């Protein structure tokens, strides 16, 4: 039966996606984060040792993002872009899903290499 094959294929894709999602959303055990703008690394922090602080990053077009480091976590607390996706993403947790602010070309992610 043709349709059964389609159902099985869709089910398989769904199952694989669930597995991959769990893998992608896994919390990172890395401690080094970097703040990247336009492909250039602006700051690197060790979350274990960094003290609580706020960093204001301005973009070339004049917009800004306010990045907050608190109790070993990092998040973007404020931005003047319309979509606010980076703020809603909350605390950085996963290796594979960096906090991204598309309008300001800003990325907050775990650094590769040293653990």
């Amino acid at each position: 039966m043709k349709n059964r094959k389609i159902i099985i294929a869709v089910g398989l894709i769904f199952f694989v996606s669930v597995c991959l999602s769990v893998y992608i959303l896994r919390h990172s055990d890395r401690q080094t984060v970097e703040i990247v703008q336009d492909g250039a690394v602006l700051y690197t922090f060790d979350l274990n040792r960094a003290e609580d602080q706020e960093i204001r990053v301005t973009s070339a077009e004049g917009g800004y993002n306010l990045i907050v480091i608190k109790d070993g976590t990092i998040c973007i607390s404020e931005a003047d872009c319309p979509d606010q996706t980076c703020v809603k993403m909350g605390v950085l947790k996963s290796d594979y899903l960096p906090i991204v602010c598309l309008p300001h070309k800003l990325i907050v992610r775990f650094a590769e290499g040293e653990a």
Partner: protein
Amino acid sequence: MNIRRLTELALLSTVALIIFVIELRIPNPFPIPGVKLGLANIVTVYAVFRCRPSETAMIVTVRLLLGAMFSGNPSALLYSAAGAVCCLLGMLVLRHILPEKQIWLCSVIGAMLHNIGQITAAVIIMRSFGVIAYLPLLLVTGSLAGVFTGICAQMLLKRMNRQNGPLR
């Protein structure tokens, strides 16, 4: 195209647009770019099964353009357009294969194709393969939403067919 047909298409586009605008007001529990309920696709699925392919394409085009305008987010248009084209092509093929009882399946596959199209557009626009990491998340949420919109469309089509005669 006669006036009756034109009015019907305009009505469908309006309904899709209203659903789209109302959905914008529903807060999104998943802070992942691209994740949406996609309720407006109930109309798309309905149109795929009841209208001609060209007519469905017209409805979707109007929805996309006006939707981008109303949401005040024209930069999202490229992603949603890429997704919509993939989704529409897939569903137009599927409607010849799937029986009436499996319209929900058509919607699920459409949702998956939509997500694949979106991510492809994102890869091309951002020139980075990192965004592919979002694809599994989008596929899971997309197919769940697709089941829901598909069941809605299926129920709707069943009732409309009972009233207005068989498909097409």
